[in-house]
């Protein structure tokens, strides 16, 4: 079952008591797959309890789909987790994070060429085959580009989705961060992106540095969603309609009310969009 077209939040264990007591009206919670790969204890107890009341999205950060090889042992762990919780969605990133056996714990960029396209498609096929479910692939936040890239990111993602049948996860903050960093127009990026294949949206906060040529934005997930990202999100809703929308806040995580207010803002924008669509 797909995620409901409502606002959701990234789950943080410190918020569990508040969620249990308040039972907030949210469409779903999302968890990072790798944090639930222990054998037992509190993480599984909390996720099992959440699963009773909410739709669940499992979001992987360690499969390294954009890297040279997939780790079959890690893919088996992801499969066991999906088998156990039967999430409403599983998503991963267009990025690499492992080099050989070494895990680098960051989402690193890849060139967009015919050869890397073939490789990523092989990996997406393999993941979908092993999991027995569709994958949503997320657009990255990038700080550099590759001289050998042969196509824009939008075309690369579009071709992966059309070839493998996977869905797309549109991270609106990543679009904004990458476009500002590469001095490109986010609206033009959206023009070229297959919004009809998007099944989930991510919103998150970013940091800003200043370079001689202009700003350098860093995808930090450590702050409120920035105003221009909300504006870009409104544009996405106008173009694509209501979509499941996650607010991520992974570093310097605030108290529950602050995080919940961010989700409420997204929920209000989705509701507005629905009313507007109904009135037309």
């Amino acid at each position, binding site marked *: 079952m797909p995620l409901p077209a409502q606002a959701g939040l990234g789950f943080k264990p410190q918020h569990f008591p508040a969620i249990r007591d308040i039972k907030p009206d949210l469409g779903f919670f999302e968890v990072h797959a790798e944090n639930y790969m222990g054998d037992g204890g509190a993480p599984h107890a909390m996720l099992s309890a959440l699963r009773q009341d909410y739709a669940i999205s499992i979001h992987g*950060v360690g499969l390294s789909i954009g890297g040279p090889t997939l780790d079959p042992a890690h893919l088996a762990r992801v499969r066991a987790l999906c088998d156990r919780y039967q999430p409403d969605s599983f998503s991963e990133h267009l990025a690499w994070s492992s080099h050989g056996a070494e895990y680098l714990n960051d989402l690193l960029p890849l060139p967009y060429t015919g050869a890397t396209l073939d490789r990523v498609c092989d990996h997406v096929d393999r993941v979908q085959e092993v999991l027995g479910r569709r994958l949503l692939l997320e657009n990255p936040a990038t700080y550099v580009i590759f001289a050998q890239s042969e196509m824009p990111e939008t075309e690369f993602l579009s071709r992966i989705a059309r070839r493998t049948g996977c869905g797309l996860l549109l991270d609106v903050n990543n679009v904004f961060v990458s476009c500002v960093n590469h001095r490109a127009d986010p609206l033009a990026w959206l023009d070229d992106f297959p919004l009809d294949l998007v099944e989930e949206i991510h919103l998150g906060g970013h940091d800003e540095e200043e370079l001689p040529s202009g700003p350098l934005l860093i995808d930090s997930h450590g702050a409120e969603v920035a105003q221009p990202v909300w504006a870009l999100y409104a544009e996405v809703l106008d173009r694509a309609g209501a979509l499941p929308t996650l607010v991520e806040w992974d570093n310097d995580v605030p108290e529950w009310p602050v995080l919940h207010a961010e989700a409420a803002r997204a929920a209000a924008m989705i509701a507005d969009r629905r009313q507007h669509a109904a009135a037309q």
Partner: protein
Amino acid sequence: MPQRSDPCRDVTPDFRAALAGGPVPGCVTASDPDEIARRFAVYRNNVAHSLREALARRFPAVRRLVGTEFFAAMAAEFIAAHPPRTPVLQDWGDAFATFLDGFPPVATLPYLGDVARIEWARGRAYHAADATALPTDRLTDAEPLRLHPSLRLVPLSHPAVAIWRANQPGRDGKPRAIGPQIALIWRRPDFDVSVEAISPADASLVHALMAGRPLAVAGLLTDPVPMLTLLLRDGLICEHENSPER
């Protein structure tokens, strides 16, 4: 899986080398090429910072004992020597205690490795498998007893339980014990992980029970009642699984 030949060459080896301080690969560029180093530094910082923070979350008392700045430098050395081999970061860091034992800059803090041993064992206990407590009235016919998968005995050369406790949030950092200690570490039914120093006699009792010895034999050296009381109170004597692990 068939490997296709990659005409643009795999970027990951050069990129990885550059993350560790090597030159930024020639294929990496930017809208303003003069800024490539500043931009690439974001990846370098992300990798270094995220791994350092992951290690600090796992070893908070070690960090408090050496201070945040020193911990960061020490973590960088550890990460270079023992990078994670799995995306499951809770499984990374078992080599940290031994690394600290042999790390010359902390030779004046010889107990640091033992504090890391406690913190590592706490993490393992936190994520250990679940098991159902055995009802007390079935204790006698359940031998050999199965102890909870989270239970760990950690022998320490230093009073590291006292040092660890004194360096928990809100404590003054001053331990009140001397000499070697044995740590018993377990997960309570409320999922919090407990750490207690126990006597050598109690440790041999737990050790014997872990090895599957009958209570009558395991309890020969000491009065087993206090330890059994603790084990029963926190649900650490468990139902056997349908397919025993042994």
